[in-house]
Protein backbone atom coordinates (compact mmCIF):
# COMPACT_ATOMS: atom_id res chain seq x y z
CA UNK A 1 0.00 0.00 0.00
CA UNK A 2 1.29 3.46 -0.95
CA UNK A 3 2.00 6.09 1.69
CA UNK A 4 -0.77 8.43 0.46
CA UNK A 5 -3.32 5.60 0.69
CA UNK A 6 -2.30 4.89 4.29
CA UNK A 7 -2.74 8.61 5.07
CA UNK A 8 -6.14 8.58 3.33
CA UNK A 9 -7.30 5.65 5.49
CA UNK A 10 -6.10 7.41 8.63
CA UNK A 11 -7.81 10.67 7.66
CA UNK A 12 -11.03 8.85 6.76
CA UNK A 13 -11.07 7.20 10.20
CA UNK A 14 -10.43 10.63 11.71
CA UNK A 15 -13.41 12.09 9.79
CA UNK A 16 -15.72 9.26 10.82
CA UNK A 17 -14.63 9.62 14.46
CA UNK A 18 -15.32 13.39 14.45
CA UNK A 19 -18.65 12.80 12.68
CA UNK A 20 -19.63 10.15 15.25
CA UNK A 21 -18.63 12.37 18.18
CA UNK A 22 -20.61 15.30 16.74
CA UNK A 23 -23.56 13.06 15.95
CA UNK A 24 -23.79 11.84 19.55
CA UNK A 25 -23.88 15.44 20.77
CA UNK A 26 -26.52 16.45 18.23
CA UNK A 27 -28.63 13.35 19.01
CA UNK A 28 -28.40 14.12 22.73
CA UNK A 29 -30.16 17.41 21.96
CA UNK A 30 -33.16 15.44 20.64
CA UNK A 31 -33.94 13.98 24.09
CA UNK A 32 -37.06 15.57 25.53
CA UNK A 33 -36.85 17.78 28.62
CA UNK A 34 -38.48 16.52 31.80
CA UNK A 35 -41.45 18.61 32.87
CA UNK A 36 -43.14 17.37 36.05
CA UNK A 37 -46.91 17.54 36.35
CA UNK A 38 -47.54 19.72 39.41
CA UNK A 39 -50.39 19.48 41.94
CA UNK A 40 -52.63 21.65 39.76
CA UNK A 41 -52.39 19.61 36.56
CA UNK A 42 -55.68 17.82 36.01
CA UNK A 43 -54.88 16.27 32.61
CA UNK A 44 -52.56 16.48 29.64
CA UNK A 45 -53.06 16.26 25.91
CA UNK A 46 -50.95 16.38 22.79
CA UNK A 47 -51.07 18.89 19.96
CA UNK A 48 -52.05 16.00 17.69
CA UNK A 49 -55.29 15.63 19.70
CA UNK A 50 -56.27 18.93 18.08
CA UNK A 51 -54.63 18.35 14.70
CA UNK A 52 -54.17 14.59 14.13
CA UNK A 53 -51.75 15.05 11.24
CA UNK A 54 -49.04 15.90 13.81
CA UNK A 55 -49.27 12.47 15.45
CA UNK A 56 -45.89 10.75 15.46
CA UNK A 57 -44.06 13.93 14.48
CA UNK A 58 -41.34 15.33 16.72
CA UNK A 59 -43.28 18.61 17.06
CA UNK A 60 -46.22 16.91 18.81
CA UNK A 61 -45.80 18.86 22.03
CA UNK A 62 -47.58 18.32 25.35
CA UNK A 63 -50.45 20.49 26.56
CA UNK A 64 -51.10 20.80 30.31
CA UNK A 65 -54.55 21.55 31.72
CA UNK A 66 -55.01 23.14 35.13
CA UNK A 67 -58.73 23.13 35.82
CA UNK A 68 -60.63 24.54 38.78
CA UNK A 69 -63.81 23.12 40.30
CA UNK A 70 -65.80 26.28 39.64
CA UNK A 71 -66.55 27.56 36.12
CA UNK A 72 -64.76 30.68 34.94
CA UNK A 73 -62.51 31.95 32.19
CA UNK A 74 -59.87 30.07 30.22
CA UNK A 75 -56.31 31.36 30.01
CA UNK A 76 -53.87 29.96 27.47
CA UNK A 77 -50.13 30.38 28.13
CA UNK A 78 -47.59 29.56 25.42
CA UNK A 79 -43.86 29.24 26.13
CA UNK A 80 -41.10 28.07 23.84
CA UNK A 81 -42.23 29.73 20.64
CA UNK A 82 -38.56 30.63 20.25
CA UNK A 83 -36.44 28.07 22.14
CA UNK A 84 -33.49 30.50 22.40
CA UNK A 85 -35.64 32.69 24.68
CA UNK A 86 -35.46 30.53 27.82
CA UNK A 87 -37.44 32.70 30.27
CA UNK A 88 -40.56 32.05 28.18
CA UNK A 89 -40.32 28.26 28.45
CA UNK A 90 -39.19 28.38 32.09
CA UNK A 91 -42.16 30.57 33.06
CA UNK A 92 -44.56 28.05 31.53
CA UNK A 93 -42.72 25.15 33.25
CA UNK A 94 -42.96 26.92 36.62
CA UNK A 95 -46.70 27.37 36.11
CA UNK A 96 -47.16 23.69 35.22
CA UNK A 97 -45.18 22.53 38.27
CA UNK A 98 -46.57 25.02 40.84
CA UNK A 99 -49.86 26.69 39.91
CA UNK A 100 -53.16 25.38 41.21
CA UNK A 101 -56.35 26.72 39.64
CA UNK A 102 -59.50 26.79 41.79
CA UNK A 103 -61.81 28.61 39.37
CA UNK A 104 -61.68 28.62 35.58
CA UNK A 105 -58.92 26.97 33.58
CA UNK A 106 -55.32 27.46 32.60
CA UNK A 107 -54.00 25.68 29.50
CA UNK A 108 -50.22 25.69 29.16
CA UNK A 109 -47.86 24.65 26.37
CA UNK A 110 -44.29 25.11 27.68
CA UNK A 111 -42.51 24.10 24.46
CA UNK A 112 -44.52 25.35 21.53
CA UNK A 113 -41.88 24.76 18.89
CA UNK A 114 -40.60 21.44 20.20
CA UNK A 115 -38.55 20.92 17.04
CA UNK A 116 -36.66 24.14 17.76
CA UNK A 117 -35.49 22.67 21.06
CA UNK A 118 -33.84 19.75 19.25
CA UNK A 119 -30.98 21.86 17.85
CA UNK A 120 -29.43 25.27 18.24
CA UNK A 121 -28.33 27.95 15.84
CA UNK A 122 -25.07 27.42 13.94
CA UNK A 123 -22.29 29.95 14.58
CA UNK A 124 -24.00 31.45 17.65
CA UNK A 125 -21.92 29.57 20.24
CA UNK A 126 -25.03 28.95 22.33
CA UNK A 127 -24.94 26.50 25.23
CA UNK A 128 -26.87 23.29 24.60
CA UNK A 129 -28.32 23.00 28.10
CA UNK A 130 -29.08 25.19 31.07
CA UNK A 131 -28.92 23.76 34.60
CA UNK A 132 -30.68 24.63 37.85
CA UNK A 133 -29.78 23.59 41.36
CA UNK A 134 -32.81 22.32 43.21
CA UNK A 135 -33.21 21.03 46.78
CA UNK A 136 -32.88 17.45 45.46
CA UNK A 137 -30.32 17.80 42.66
CA UNK A 138 -29.78 19.30 39.25
CA UNK A 139 -32.57 19.84 36.71
CA UNK A 140 -31.64 20.70 33.15
CA UNK A 141 -33.43 22.10 30.13
CA UNK A 142 -32.40 22.49 26.54
CA UNK A 143 -31.45 25.86 25.06
CA UNK A 144 -32.65 25.64 21.50
CA UNK A 145 -32.86 27.57 18.29
CA UNK A 146 -35.18 30.37 17.26
CA UNK A 147 -36.52 28.19 14.45
CA UNK A 148 -37.67 24.68 13.60
CA UNK A 149 -34.90 22.12 13.10
CA UNK A 150 -33.98 21.86 9.37
CA UNK A 151 -33.99 18.07 9.70
CA UNK A 152 -37.75 18.38 10.26
CA UNK A 153 -38.44 21.08 7.68
CA UNK A 154 -36.19 21.38 4.67
CA UNK A 155 -35.23 23.16 2.41
CA UNK A 156 -35.73 26.85 3.17
CA UNK A 157 -36.92 28.88 0.20
CA UNK A 158 -34.94 31.96 -0.84
CA UNK A 159 -37.94 34.06 0.13
CA UNK A 160 -40.74 32.94 2.43
CA UNK A 161 -44.08 34.19 1.22
CA UNK A 162 -46.47 33.86 4.14
CA UNK A 163 -50.16 33.06 4.00
CA UNK A 164 -50.94 36.74 3.45
CA UNK A 165 -48.61 37.14 0.47
CA UNK A 166 -45.99 39.05 2.44
CA UNK A 167 -42.32 38.36 1.61
CA UNK A 168 -39.97 37.43 4.44
CA UNK A 169 -36.42 36.08 4.45
CA UNK A 170 -36.25 32.37 3.61
CA UNK A 171 -35.33 31.15 7.10
CA UNK A 172 -38.49 32.74 8.53
CA UNK A 173 -40.36 29.83 6.99
CA UNK A 174 -39.27 27.92 10.13
CA UNK A 175 -40.21 30.70 12.57
CA UNK A 176 -43.31 29.68 14.53
CA UNK A 177 -44.18 33.31 15.19
CA UNK A 178 -44.51 34.11 11.50
CA UNK A 179 -46.71 31.21 10.43
CA UNK A 180 -50.04 31.91 12.16
CA UNK A 181 -52.88 31.19 11.79
CA UNK A 182 -51.29 28.19 10.10
CA UNK A 183 -52.81 25.90 7.58
CA UNK A 184 -53.43 22.13 7.58
CA UNK A 185 -51.66 21.75 4.23
CA UNK A 186 -48.82 24.18 4.98
CA UNK A 187 -45.21 23.45 5.86
CA UNK A 188 -44.16 21.72 9.12
CA UNK A 189 -44.07 24.98 11.12
CA UNK A 190 -47.36 26.25 9.70
CA UNK A 191 -48.96 22.94 10.72
CA UNK A 192 -47.79 23.48 14.31
CA UNK A 193 -49.29 26.98 14.12
CA UNK A 194 -52.54 25.45 12.90
CA UNK A 195 -52.49 22.96 15.80
CA UNK A 196 -51.99 25.75 18.36
CA UNK A 197 -54.75 27.82 16.73
CA UNK A 198 -57.00 24.75 16.99
CA UNK A 199 -56.33 24.55 20.74
CA UNK A 200 -57.30 28.21 21.19
CA UNK A 201 -60.46 27.82 19.11
CA UNK A 202 -61.65 24.44 20.43
CA UNK A 203 -60.97 25.30 24.08
CA UNK A 204 -62.53 28.77 23.60
CA UNK A 205 -59.64 30.50 25.34
CA UNK A 206 -60.60 33.94 26.64
CA UNK A 207 -57.07 35.21 27.13
CA UNK A 208 -54.02 33.89 25.27
CA UNK A 209 -50.50 34.88 26.24
CA UNK A 210 -47.41 34.20 24.11
CA UNK A 211 -44.18 34.54 26.10
CA UNK A 212 -40.95 35.79 24.53
CA UNK A 213 -37.60 37.40 25.18
CA UNK A 214 -35.78 39.98 23.09
CA UNK A 215 -32.30 41.40 22.62
CA UNK A 216 -31.63 44.44 24.82
CA UNK A 217 -31.05 46.52 21.69
CA UNK A 218 -34.47 45.59 20.25
CA UNK A 219 -37.11 48.34 20.67
CA UNK A 220 -39.98 46.04 21.66
CA UNK A 221 -38.69 44.91 25.03
CA UNK A 222 -40.08 44.80 28.58
CA UNK A 223 -43.26 45.18 26.63
CA UNK A 224 -46.77 43.87 26.30
CA UNK A 225 -48.00 43.72 22.70
CA UNK A 226 -51.76 43.50 22.58
CA UNK A 227 -54.33 42.82 19.91
CA UNK A 228 -56.87 45.65 19.75
CA UNK A 229 -59.48 43.60 21.64
CA UNK A 230 -56.97 43.15 24.49
CA UNK A 231 -55.83 46.78 24.78
CA UNK A 232 -58.06 47.66 27.75
CA UNK A 233 -56.95 44.56 29.61
CA UNK A 234 -53.27 45.20 28.85
CA UNK A 235 -53.59 48.86 29.91
CA UNK A 236 -55.00 47.90 33.31
CA UNK A 237 -52.31 45.26 33.70
CA UNK A 238 -49.51 47.72 32.93
CA UNK A 239 -50.80 50.16 35.58
CA UNK A 240 -50.83 47.34 38.15
CA UNK A 241 -47.32 46.29 37.13
CA UNK A 242 -46.06 49.87 37.53
CA UNK A 243 -47.37 49.80 41.10
CA UNK A 244 -45.06 46.82 41.63
CA UNK A 245 -42.18 48.85 40.12
CA UNK A 246 -42.21 46.70 36.98
CA UNK A 247 -42.22 49.03 34.00
CA UNK A 248 -43.70 47.80 30.73
CA UNK A 249 -44.33 49.45 27.39
CA UNK A 250 -47.71 48.90 25.81
CA UNK A 251 -47.59 48.21 22.09
CA UNK A 252 -50.63 47.81 19.89
CA UNK A 253 -50.34 44.89 17.50
CA UNK A 254 -49.68 46.41 14.04
CA UNK A 255 -52.49 45.31 11.68
CA UNK A 256 -50.06 44.87 8.77
CA UNK A 257 -47.53 42.72 10.67
CA UNK A 258 -49.01 39.35 9.72
CA UNK A 259 -48.36 35.84 10.93
CA UNK A 260 -47.63 36.75 14.56
CA UNK A 261 -49.52 35.55 17.63
CA UNK A 262 -50.64 38.98 18.85
CA UNK A 263 -52.25 39.61 15.44
CA UNK A 264 -53.54 36.27 14.15
CA UNK A 265 -54.70 34.72 17.44
CA UNK A 266 -56.95 37.76 17.85
CA UNK A 267 -58.06 37.90 14.22
CA UNK A 268 -58.72 34.16 13.80
CA UNK A 269 -60.35 33.42 17.16
CA UNK A 270 -62.33 35.22 19.86
CA UNK A 271 -59.40 35.25 22.29
CA UNK A 272 -57.73 38.36 23.68
CA UNK A 273 -54.20 37.97 22.32
CA UNK A 274 -51.14 39.20 24.21
CA UNK A 275 -47.40 38.83 23.57
CA UNK A 276 -44.79 39.71 26.20
CA UNK A 277 -41.04 40.35 26.02
CA UNK A 278 -38.21 40.45 28.57
CA UNK A 279 -34.50 41.27 28.10
CA UNK A 280 -32.24 38.39 27.11
CA UNK A 281 -28.60 39.24 26.38
CA UNK A 282 -27.78 35.73 25.14
CA UNK A 283 -29.71 36.31 21.93
CA UNK A 284 -28.39 39.84 21.35
CA UNK A 285 -26.04 40.85 18.54
CA UNK A 286 -23.49 42.75 20.64
CA UNK A 287 -23.05 40.20 23.39
CA UNK A 288 -19.63 38.97 24.42
CA UNK A 289 -18.87 35.43 25.50
CA UNK A 290 -21.96 33.27 25.03
CA UNK A 291 -22.31 30.58 27.64
CA UNK A 292 -24.72 29.19 30.19
CA UNK A 293 -23.77 31.92 32.69
CA UNK A 294 -24.83 34.61 30.22
CA UNK A 295 -28.19 32.89 29.70
CA UNK A 296 -28.81 32.60 33.43
CA UNK A 297 -27.39 35.89 34.70
CA UNK A 298 -27.51 38.22 31.72
CA UNK A 299 -24.23 39.73 32.89
CA UNK A 300 -22.33 41.10 29.91
CA UNK A 301 -19.84 43.96 29.85
CA UNK A 302 -20.59 44.77 26.21
CA UNK A 303 -24.20 45.46 27.09
CA UNK A 304 -23.14 47.57 30.07
CA UNK A 305 -21.01 49.62 27.67
CA UNK A 306 -23.88 49.83 25.17
CA UNK A 307 -26.20 51.06 27.93
CA UNK A 308 -23.68 53.75 28.88
CA UNK A 309 -23.72 54.89 25.25
CA UNK A 310 -27.52 55.01 25.27
CA UNK A 311 -27.92 52.29 22.66
CA UNK A 312 -30.31 50.01 24.55
CA UNK A 313 -34.02 50.03 25.23
CA UNK A 314 -33.68 48.63 28.77
CA UNK A 315 -31.52 49.68 31.71
CA UNK A 316 -28.37 47.54 31.84
CA UNK A 317 -25.67 47.44 34.53
CA UNK A 318 -23.18 44.99 36.03
CA UNK A 319 -26.01 43.05 37.67
CA UNK A 320 -27.35 41.95 34.28
CA UNK A 321 -30.88 40.57 34.00
CA UNK A 322 -30.94 37.19 35.75
CA UNK A 323 -33.35 34.48 34.73
CA UNK A 324 -35.28 34.89 37.99
CA UNK A 325 -35.96 38.53 37.14
CA UNK A 326 -37.08 37.66 33.61
CA UNK A 327 -39.30 34.76 34.69
CA UNK A 328 -40.58 36.89 37.59
CA UNK A 329 -41.61 39.67 35.20
CA UNK A 330 -43.51 37.19 33.03
CA UNK A 331 -45.22 35.62 36.04
CA UNK A 332 -46.20 39.01 37.51
CA UNK A 333 -47.61 40.12 34.17
CA UNK A 334 -49.56 36.87 33.73
CA UNK A 335 -51.05 37.26 37.21
CA UNK A 336 -52.18 40.86 36.70
CA UNK A 337 -53.59 40.03 33.27
CA UNK A 338 -55.63 37.16 34.75
CA UNK A 339 -56.76 39.27 37.71
CA UNK A 340 -57.79 42.16 35.48
CA UNK A 341 -59.67 39.84 33.14
CA UNK A 342 -61.79 38.83 36.15
CA UNK A 343 -62.23 42.50 37.02
CA UNK A 344 -63.30 43.51 33.50
CA UNK A 345 -65.30 40.35 32.74
CA UNK A 346 -66.56 38.82 36.03
CA UNK A 347 -67.87 35.71 34.24
CA UNK A 348 -64.31 35.01 33.07
CA UNK A 349 -62.77 35.00 36.53
CA UNK A 350 -59.80 32.67 37.02
CA UNK A 351 -58.61 32.03 40.57
CA UNK A 352 -55.35 30.31 41.39
CA UNK A 353 -52.61 29.96 43.96
CA UNK A 354 -49.09 28.58 44.09
CA UNK A 355 -47.48 31.07 41.71
CA UNK A 356 -44.51 32.78 43.41
CA UNK A 357 -44.25 36.55 43.50
CA UNK A 358 -41.47 38.46 41.75
CA UNK A 359 -39.66 39.04 45.06
CA UNK A 360 -40.03 35.40 46.17
CA UNK A 361 -38.50 34.21 42.92
CA UNK A 362 -35.57 36.64 43.22
CA UNK A 363 -34.94 35.58 46.82
CA UNK A 364 -35.33 31.80 46.52
CA UNK A 365 -34.10 31.24 42.97
CA UNK A 366 -35.78 29.44 40.07
CA UNK A 367 -34.49 25.97 41.03
CA UNK A 368 -36.42 26.04 44.29
CA UNK A 369 -39.69 25.93 42.35
CA UNK A 370 -38.83 22.89 40.28
CA UNK A 371 -40.36 19.59 41.42
CA UNK A 372 -38.57 16.27 41.77
CA UNK A 373 -39.06 14.15 38.62
Amino acid at each position, binding site marked *: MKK*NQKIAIFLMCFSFFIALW*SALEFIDQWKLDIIVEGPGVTRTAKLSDYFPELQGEYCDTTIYFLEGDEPGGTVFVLGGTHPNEPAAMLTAVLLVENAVVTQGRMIIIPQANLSGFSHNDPQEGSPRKIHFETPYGIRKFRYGSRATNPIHQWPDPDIYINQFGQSLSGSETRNLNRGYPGTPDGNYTEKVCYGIMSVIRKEECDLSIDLHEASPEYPVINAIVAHERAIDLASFAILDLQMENLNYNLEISPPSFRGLTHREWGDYSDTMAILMETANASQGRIRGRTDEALVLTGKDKMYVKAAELGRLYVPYDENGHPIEERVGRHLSAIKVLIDNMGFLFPDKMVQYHGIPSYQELLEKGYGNYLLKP
Partner: protein
Amino acid sequence: MAIITITYRIIILFLTILIIREMFKEENIWNQLTGALVIIPFILRFFMIK
Protein backbone atom coordinates in the same frame (compact mmCIF):
# COMPACT_ATOMS: atom_id res chain seq x y z
CA MET B 1 -39.83 11.20 2.99
CA ALA B 2 -40.10 13.88 0.33
CA ILE B 3 -38.58 13.13 -3.06
CA ILE B 4 -36.40 16.24 -2.77
CA THR B 5 -34.87 14.88 0.45
CA ILE B 6 -34.16 11.49 -1.11
CA THR B 7 -32.54 13.19 -4.13
CA TYR B 8 -30.51 15.41 -1.81
CA ARG B 9 -29.23 12.43 0.16
CA ILE B 10 -28.29 10.56 -3.02
CA ILE B 11 -26.30 13.61 -4.19
CA ILE B 12 -24.54 13.82 -0.81
CA LEU B 13 -23.67 10.11 -0.91
CA PHE B 14 -22.33 10.46 -4.46
CA LEU B 15 -20.18 13.49 -3.52
CA THR B 16 -18.89 11.76 -0.37
CA ILE B 17 -17.79 8.73 -2.42
CA LEU B 18 -16.09 11.01 -4.96
CA ILE B 19 -14.22 12.91 -2.22
CA ILE B 20 -13.09 9.68 -0.52
CA ARG B 21 -11.92 8.36 -3.90
CA GLU B 22 -10.01 11.60 -4.47
CA MET B 23 -8.42 11.31 -1.01
CA PHE B 24 -6.93 7.96 -2.03
CA LYS B 25 -5.64 9.33 -5.37
CA GLU B 26 -4.31 12.61 -3.98
CA GLU B 27 -0.54 12.86 -3.28
CA ASN B 28 -0.67 16.20 -1.42
CA ILE B 29 -1.46 15.63 2.28
CA TRP B 30 -3.08 19.07 2.66
CA ASN B 31 -5.57 18.28 -0.10
CA GLN B 32 -6.24 14.93 1.58
CA LEU B 33 -6.87 16.74 4.87
CA THR B 34 -9.25 19.16 3.13
CA GLY B 35 -11.20 16.18 1.80
CA ALA B 36 -11.33 14.68 5.29
CA LEU B 37 -12.81 17.88 6.72
CA VAL B 38 -15.34 18.24 3.92
CA ILE B 39 -16.85 14.79 4.42
CA ILE B 40 -17.66 15.39 8.12
CA PRO B 41 -20.74 17.60 7.49
CA PHE B 42 -21.63 15.41 4.50
CA ILE B 43 -21.84 12.35 6.77
CA LEU B 44 -24.00 14.26 9.28
CA ARG B 45 -26.30 15.51 6.53
CA PHE B 46 -26.57 12.09 4.87
CA PHE B 47 -27.86 10.58 8.10
CA MET B 48 -30.04 13.70 8.67
CA ILE B 49 -28.48 14.27 12.09
CA LYS B 50 -27.70 17.95 11.52
